[in-house]
């Protein structure tokens, strides 16, 4: 779990942290998480609600203390320090702007606390408001702004302090889809520009995939998998990651010396070599877009099935194919292959589908 960092000391090191609430039946909100986040990295904590990602972020920010383990910022143990003694800043989900202060005063808040000289404050605040394209609104109160503008103020208010690490708690969740797409690009640009480490919490896998250098997929208080977007998408290490990151077909079977015998019948080659004993129950994971419906190549794994449903979605068509009673896989095909309706498969037809062995993973 500790990949070789680019920079000698990681910006953030979570050293086997856990958070337990004694009141709630001794369940763990976060359980034994060990992560290194490199300097200048755009790092995402991704997972469904309640998976512990926000708790983890609050531990880095100093709003929650871990019950076990320690938090290190730039090599220094900060466990137990209050938020105001840590050189990290947070963009809150609700933005948490100070409604009684103007935009400029909101942004200047942190610098004033630090005792930065007045002239420098003015200069840095102006620069930061310009960076987020709100320079012309400096005198306004937050209540008069739109959601996207408020989001930018929150970002500017945090970034102006030049923190070691910027924590972002689902900052785009309150925006509509179009604005969210726009802000994703803008956030990424700003991050590159300022070169600060971003730790980004989200439940939106598209957002994590498009913006992050690395992603930690979280489930039920622990990290399921940590790696580059390509890693976690193409090579999920667990059934949870495979199904949380986009859609994946999970076909039940039994492991036997590097191959899998599907419950549906055929024995198939797979792309990875997990440390499993023969006879283990496993899931075979194949992404819908990696399954071929025609022009199968000789080295492909092949399975027969019956088309049960054809769903046309504009650029793509999704077929639901039943391999055996109760075992159905979905197959996604670009509509360039069969562009006209009469060429598409229809319900009840017998088909043979296939995939390249390296696209098919055994998951425990």
């Amino acid at each position, binding site marked *: 779990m500790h990949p070789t960092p680019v920079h000698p000391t990681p910006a953030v090191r979570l050293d086997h942290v856990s958070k337990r609430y004694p009141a709630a039946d001794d369940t763990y909100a976060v359980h034994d998480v060990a992560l290194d986040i490199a300097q200048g990295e755009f790092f995402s904590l991704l997972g469904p609600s309640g998976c512990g990602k*926000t708790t983890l972020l609050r531990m880095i920010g*100093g709003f929650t203390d871990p019950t076990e383990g320690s938090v290190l910022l730039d090599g220094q143990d900060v466990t137990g320090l*209050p938020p105001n003694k840590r050189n990290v800043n947070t963009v809150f989900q609700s933005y948490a702007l100070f409604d009684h202060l103007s935009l400029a005063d909101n942004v200047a808040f942190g610098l004033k606390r630090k005792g930065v000289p007045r002239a420098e404050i003015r200069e840095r605040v102006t620069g930061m408001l310009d960076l987020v394209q709100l320079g012309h609104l400096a005198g306004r109160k937050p209540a008069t702004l739109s959601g996207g503008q408020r989001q930018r103020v929150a970002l500017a208010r945090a970034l102006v302090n030049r923190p070691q690490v910027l924590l972002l708690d689902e900052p785009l969740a309150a925006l509509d889809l179009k604005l969210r797409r726009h802000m994703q690009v803008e956030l990424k640009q700003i991050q590159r520009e300022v070169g600060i480490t971003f730790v980004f919490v989200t439940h939106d896998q598209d957002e994590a995939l498009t913006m992050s250098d690395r992603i930690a997929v979280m489930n039920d208080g622990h990290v399921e998998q940590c790696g580059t977007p390509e890693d976690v998408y193409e090579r999920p290490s667990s059934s949870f990651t495979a199904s949380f990151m986009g859609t994946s077909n999970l076909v039940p079977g039994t492991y036997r010396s590097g191959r899998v015998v599907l419950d549906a019948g055929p024995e198939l080659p797979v792309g990875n070599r997990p440390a499993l004993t023969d006879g283990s129950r496993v899931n075979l994971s194949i992404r819908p877009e990696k399954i071929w419906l025609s022009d199968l190549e000789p080295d492909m794994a092949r399975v027969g099935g019956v088309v049960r449903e054809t769903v046309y979605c504009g650029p793509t068509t999704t077929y639901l194919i039943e391999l055996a009673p109760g075992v159905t896989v979905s197959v996604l095909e670009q509509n360039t292959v069969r562009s006209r309706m009469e060429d598409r498969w229809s319900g009840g037809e017998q088909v043979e589908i296939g995939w390249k062995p390296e696209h098919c993973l055994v998951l425990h």
Partner: protein
Amino acid sequence: MADTKARGPRLWTWLLLPGTLWMTGFLVASLLLVATLALGTTDPLGNPRFGFNPDNLTALADPAYRTVLLRSLGYALITCLICLAVAYPVAYAIALRGGRFKNLLIAAIVVPFFANYLVRMYGWSVVLSDDGPLLRFLRAIGVADDGTKILQTGAGVIAGLVYGFVVFMIIPLYAAMERMDTSLIEAGRDLYGGPLRTFLYVTVPATRQGAAAGCVLVFLPAMGDFVSAQLMGGPDQIMIGNLIQDKFFQGQNWPLGSALTMLLMAVLFLGMLGYLRRTRKDEAEAAR
């Protein structure tokens, strides 16, 4: 998820301290003092003496006191009923038909309530007086004759209590009706037909909690009031508040006054208990 850190809350506890100490020192201590003195006696000069003496408690059994207590209870209950009868239509009309004047109308009810209680009661007693505008109007339309009186009667005292505290009934009822889904009333029209039946079967149950809160808010001050009985009533209309006032100011029997105060508290405590049990039951039913 919104957990605050274990450190820090000490500040919040420190903030609690001055207010709690103040309230304990003045209020709780003083109420305990009343309870203690209720068992005391007076020396020959009339000065209060602490001690354990059940005389005051047995004195409460005196039929004269029982009459006053029952009268106070009766007045306060009738006041509650009249307030309900007045507040329901008023709250209903404002909440459902007030339109954009809703807030203005409610403010128009609340504002005079904040005017000085005595000045309002005094004005009300002028209105209700024998040659005041109300009786003159009633005589003119033939409803009342020359002998009809409002002041110096129980009706006058109750009129004073209603005028004094009706706003406490209107506000919670209005809030309950605001929360009520108006489509309920439309559905009620379909189910029950007439507006009266719709009101009884739909509006009243939906606003029961507001009405209960209003009853408590009216009953408490009405039971303890002594101004209305003084300004609107005569010697035969005195309430328990007047007895207490008398024992502390004219009669100079503080232990007996304290005992009467405790009696008043006991009655109100029983009433509150009933109200709390009722709301608990309602909440339990709502949760189911």
